């Protein structure tokens, strides 16, 4: 490969690339531009509704404080879910990569990753069934404990966090596992032979080398969680109002698309800022 590109080759390459990139333009990049335009309108240009260009939608975000507070609430949710997923997922990946060997490892790895590819909606629905007041969790705990208990986690922030961790845990296990697998075992052996305590090996060798994988997993979790609306809606009850649900409402119920577009754009800015901050680690992890 390499060298200067002949004209014919260039045409051929363009022909091969065109369908994919035209598609992405039509379905992703143009829509994002259209949304930028919509976020500057006063009303949906629909039927005989009056509209003009305005910054009111962004002003609404800055002035009322409600939306900013919700965005902050969603960011906090993202941080909580990400932290819990990393704390629970990294040891799991470590066991997979460094303790279990051979075919068992392949099987276990698949088992962990499989739910990630099953329908997220169905999994959230599963939690709704499990967490209900007279649900299975309650019945199970009741059977074990001698006294009468009434466990009702449903419709609480805890329920939302449990559902989201369940949805996104496999991400961080996957990325951490890939990073851990790349660590040469002989490096760890050498450190051990030199008498390094286990703690030191973990802190000085394994964690630094696996860091890009952990960061990649964390970003992959944080980004969708900040924009989640289905999970809070189904598991949160009266506490289930988040930034994502308000955006959903603008499009589905209130019919204030311009405000919804502006709120989406602000979210996009936050997400891009986070991606940019994490990009060095991401680049290392994806290499």
């Amino acid at each position: 490969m390499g060298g200067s590109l002949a004209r014919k080759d260039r045409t051929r390459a363009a022909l091969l690339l065109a369908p994919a990139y035209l598609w992405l333009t039509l379905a992703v990049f143009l829509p994002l531009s259209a949304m930028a335009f919509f976020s500057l309108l006063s009303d949906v240009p629909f039927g005989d509704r009056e509209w003009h260009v305005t910054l009111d939608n962004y002003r609404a975000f800055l002035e009322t404080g409600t939306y900013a507070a919700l965005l902050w609430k969603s960011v906090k949710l993202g941080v909580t879910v990400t932290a819990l997923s990393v704390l629970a997922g990294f040891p799991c990946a470590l066991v997979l990569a460094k303790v279990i060997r051979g075919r068992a490892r392949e099987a276990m790895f698949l088992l962990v990753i499989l739910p990630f590819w099953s329908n997220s909606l169905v999994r959230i629905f599963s939690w709704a069934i499990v967490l209900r007041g007279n649900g299975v969790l309650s019945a199970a705990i009741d059977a074990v404990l001698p006294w009468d208990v009434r466990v009702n986690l449903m419709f609480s922030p805890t329920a939302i966090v449990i559902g989201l961790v369940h949805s996104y845990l496999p991400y961080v296990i996957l990325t951490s596992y890939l990073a851990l697998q790349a660590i040469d075992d002989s490096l760890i052996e050498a450190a051990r032979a030199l008498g390094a305590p286990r703690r030191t090996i973990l802190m000085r060798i394994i964690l630094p080398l696996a860091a890009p994988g952990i960061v990649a997993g964390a970003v992959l979790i944080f980004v969708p969680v900040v924009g989640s609306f289905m999970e809070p809606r189904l598991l949160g009850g009266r506490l289930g109002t988040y930034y994502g649900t308000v955006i959903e409402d603008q499009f589905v119920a209130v019919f204030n698309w311009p405000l919804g577009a502006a709120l989406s754009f602000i979210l996009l800015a936050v997400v891009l800022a986070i991606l940019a901050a994490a990009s060095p680690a991401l680049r290392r992890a994806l290499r």
Partner: protein
Amino acid sequence: MRKLLLTSALILAAQGASADEIRVLNWQGYGTDLDWALAAFTEQTGHTVVHEYFTSEQEMLTKLRTNPGAYDVVLINSAYTAQAQAEGLIAPIDTAKITNFADLDPGLTGNADLNPAGALHGVPWTWGLTSIAVNTNDFAELPTSLSVLWDPAWTGRVSIRDDGLEAVQFAAMATGQNINAITDMEAVKEKLAALMPQITTFWSSENDWNQFMSAGDFAVATYWSGSAARSQAAGLPVAFVVPEEGAIGWLDGLSIPASSTHQDAAHAFIDWMVDPEFYVKWEPDGAPATSNTKAAAALPETSFNRAVLGDPAVVAKVQFMQPVSDADREAYLKLWQDLKAAQ
């Protein structure tokens, strides 16, 4: 690949071709989707019916706005009929196509809210109350005041619908105000803020309500009179209460979207929905009050609706919902959204 696209195109064409399939937009489990009623309608007319549901009037209006041509019959609370008409979403009803029209209560067909711009835009179908219902396992004695919603004994076991207008109206009643002329918004806001910590979740449909009630999640929740009758019929330990502060009265009409391409079938469906036979058969399942005078006469004396809605003491307490101005509605929605966001 071409073959696949062709097949896809054929499937799409086939779906569009069945001209006699009408789509009804309604609350889930609210009469129009009864299996036996649909089977009878299909047998009589050959038309088939599919359903789509909404969980709030806001959502219903947005569905009509953004999906022109998708719906043929829509249930609209009379307080919203004028708004839907003003936005050009619904068409006038051709009463000549409704054979049962002459039997409908003239007081209801002449209702000003159903006749925006001087023409009937919604056929009065049912009316009833929105009040509270309690779990009789929790209440040995039925509550007499709306204040039960704010009772700390039931913290975490109270529910209302996620609807700004309805929430505001309940708070208005609890603070002794007229739901159609709220003067003290501060009191309403305070009352709702105090209600929020009581609530476990918002309910969005009758089916939802029944599941939560049977799970013991609810002790007391707002509810519709007809639905309460249906829940009782389904064996749930439920009692409908009209407290001393009053209850919200509503009148539901069936409308036809202006963009409907099956106007005749839509009229035929509405005609069946106001047929005495339909109402009488619906009654044992727990139906709201009928708009058809013949049907009302045919109902047994002991029916739930006669017992509750026929009691003059109850009727005196009812405040009927009237259309809300755009400015008020926006203020209510904003108040409600802020309250939810602050949780």
